[in-house]
């Protein structure tokens, strides 16, 4: 029996030796941060805007709402959102997917306006009495607007955007900063600046690409810098900690990439017919994929083929493209095209604005998230628990049906990257959100 005893001892020793296996499971800890009062500052991306509108369920799955949920593990408090009453989308209905017959008679899966229960009654009512709010993001907000007194009234009157108006208690006089400070943050995120280039991009680069004050202009770097610095200086002076997110390169989002430059598909007869239209300029078309024709005042005859790297906007009427000769005998109007120079303006401004953001983070020792780099990884695909999220329109899963804003799953991916940034900068161990628990695109 002695041998048996020796055997048993050896096995028990073996069992205990194998217990150590380098597993790092840690309890959620808040690190150097007090998450009691989290305030989210930003534009539509921060408000939870999706599918071309704002609606209640999307507000509840904005990345700040997801973050606030995760912060509860480490002492985060309530997160008050200026919620809309309904889910139909306000002021315009959201988009949903449906199979629709196009002008060519073929059924195709397309984003269409939601036509279900219209539950937006009361959306206009001022709800500032329910404030102060933790999510003070306003769709359409530019960085350069942040110190503007009466912002909400101006946005409503001149741009038809009533989002701020419904939750600012003094829309005629308050600046966005005034409303932000109604709740003193212990922690904040700032994701501003996207609209300081997006308005220009959405106009097809028809505004001032060198810098101007209109919404279709790229914002002036001087204005951007002074407003951004003042905002961050103010927040830092409170003693709050936070994360500053930079501006993603918007030219990689589906709104600008869903329609390929060489999406003009012709058969042999069509190619010959079209070549004959352009005999004067010598532009030839072949059977198969061709580059679309676009307007260009500097080109001979005022039109040329779009080049690789130049972008077409998702707002191009699909029926015009399919059946009315757009992109062929009718060059696509400039307002639907970003040419190389316009893309250069956007990218130059984005880099400059991002430098301002990074400098502010460094100056105050705040966490900095390179949202631009993160969103670029979506182009090659972000794999999360068995699902590959990409920038592909509709089927990529990360972008909602407007091609600009994210799905709840896309927002959860962003929330997780913010958590990783917080954990790395502040020594916290907040767990990541379960991205796949949230909704993606719904198919009919």
């Amino acid at each position: 029996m002695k041998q048996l005893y020796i055997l048993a001892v050896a096995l028990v020793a073996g069992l205990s030796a194998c217990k150590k296996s380098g597993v790092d499971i840690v309890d959620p800890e808040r690190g150097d941060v007090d998450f009691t009062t989290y305030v989210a500052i930003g534009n539509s991306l921060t408000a939870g805007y999706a599918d071309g509108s704002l609606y209640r369920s999307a507000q509840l799955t904005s990345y700040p709402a997801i973050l606030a949920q995760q912060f509860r593990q480490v002492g985060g408090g309530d997160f008050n959102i200026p919620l809309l009453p309904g889910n139909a989308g306000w002021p315009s209905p959201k988009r949903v997917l449906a199979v629709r017959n196009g002008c060519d008679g073929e059924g195709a899966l397309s984003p269409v306006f939601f036509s279900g229960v219209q539950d937006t009654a009361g959306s206009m009512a001022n709800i500032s009495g329910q404030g102060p709010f933790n999510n003070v993001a306003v769709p359409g907000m530019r960085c350069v607007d942040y110190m503007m007194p009466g912002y909400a009234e101006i946005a409503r009157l001149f741009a038809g955007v009533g989002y701020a108006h419904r939750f600012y208690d003094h829309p005629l006089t308050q600046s966005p900063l005034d409303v932000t400070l109604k709740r003193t943050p212990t922690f904040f995120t700032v994701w501003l600046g996207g609209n300081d280039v997006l308005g220009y991009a959405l106009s097809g680069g028809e505004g001032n690409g060198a810098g101007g004050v209109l919404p279709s202009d790229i914002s002036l770097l001087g204005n951007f810098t002074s407003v951004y610095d003042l905002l961050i200086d103010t927040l830092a002076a409170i003693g709050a900690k936070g994360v500053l997110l930079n501006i993603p390169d918007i030219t990689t989002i589906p709104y600008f990439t869903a329609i390929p430059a060489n999406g003009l598909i012709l058969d042999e007869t069509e190619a010959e017919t079209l070549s004959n239209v352009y005999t004067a300029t010598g532009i030839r078309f072949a059977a198969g994929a061709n580059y679309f024709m676009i307007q260009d005042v500097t080109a001979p005859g005022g039109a040329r083929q779009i080049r690789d790297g130049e972008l077409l906007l998702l707002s191009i009427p699909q029926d015009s493209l399919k059946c009315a000769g757009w992109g062929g005998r009718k060059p696509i109007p400039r307002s639907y095209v970003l040419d190389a120079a316009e893309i250069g303006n956007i990218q130059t401004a984005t880099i400059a604005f991002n430098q301002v953001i990074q400098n502010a983070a460094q100056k105050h020792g705040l966490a900095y998230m390179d949202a631009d780099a993160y969103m670029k990884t979506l182009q090659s695909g972000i794999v999360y628990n068995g699902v590959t999220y990409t920038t592909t329109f509709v089927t990529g899963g990360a972008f909602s049906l407007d091609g600009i804003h994210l799905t709840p799953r896309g927002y959860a991916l962003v929330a997780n990257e913010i958590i990783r940034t917080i954990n790395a900068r502040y020594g916290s161990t907040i767990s990541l959100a379960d991205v796949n628990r949230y909704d993606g695109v719904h198919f009919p």
Partner: protein
Amino acid sequence: MRKTGSLALAFMSVSLLASGGSYQLNLQGLRQVAMGGSGVAWPWDVSAIFYNPGALSRLDGLQVYANAFAVSPRVRYEEALTGVYTAEAHPKRSVPFAVYAGGTVKKGGKLGVGLGVYTPFGSSINWGDDWRGRYIVQSIALSSIFVQPTVSYRVNDIISVGAGFVYGSGTVEIHKAIPLQDMDGNDGRSVLKGRAHGVGFNVGAQVKATGKLQFGASYRSGVRMKVKDGNASFDVASSLVTSFPNTSFSTELPLPGILTIGAGYRVTKKLVVQGDVVFAGWHTYDSLRFEFKENTTALRNTSEPRNYSNTIALRLGAHYNITPALAVMAGGAYDPSPVSDDLLAPDAVDADRLSLSCGVSYIPVRNVSVIAALNYTATPQREAFYAPANFHGVYQIKSLVPALAVSYKF
């Protein structure tokens, strides 16, 4: 006239991987199981058909033997970093069994023949429909039954050899969610179901070096379990139905070749100790492929890397006769995992296994033996990652297997 590609349905590739972990079951003969699974060197009973066909011709006469095991492993997943999320696989009991008949044709004869029916691999795990890994696997069930006719020849008093032909059949069923939601937010679903077949062999030799010391070696060939015409069915939103046609699929699950070398030593008249070294050729499992008869942009053939490594397991055991009719057994084994830390999928959870077992055998009436045994297998917590799905977590397996066997000697 022209079409723009703006809404072409270029889906995220939906992978439909299945499993294989250390899906080998080491539950073929109860006396050996009670001794840590060792037994290649000693002609214990007719389960030698599995453990070492060379031992069959050293049994004294014919035997029939049957055993069954109640397997219900507990498998636990813990999300990496904070463990805020945990999941436990739904307990599912399976009952692997083995039946053997055979021995020497004449008492004291040199020729042994026999037939074994056993379940050398199997794996079943059900994580539930809504757990975090549902797009990788919701549930998977693999089962097998091998039939092995065997002949054995005792060359002389020292050496005996044997060989068996193996015909294997099995089933596979895999459920997973498809990450495309309908208007109500429900995931799509896929179910792959099929029957698998394969052939192989099992050869072995035993050497009775002295009256006390014996050696044995066996080689069970690898068996490629092929599914040729499985049934792939999908349940997706109606606008996606043409992208996910119900079709047939083929795949192959390679079972590794196993070389076992061992020794047994009679320490006293009552006590035998034995040990086996087991080499498993898992490297043949480099990837798991599914080929669909009908492909679409959404439904493509898949190939998931597995890159298993060969392993060497150790098994030790002892057998002590308290009286001629009553014996106790005990043993243990160390079974390292063939799966690397970055390719551990939740459909084939695995880790280095330590197992302890014990058992008792009793002869209530002449020629009848009854054996009862308990096997406890546990793994340390293993932090692992499944790179193709970017799925990260900490796994742990615990399994308590009670088993019962009856044999009759003619």
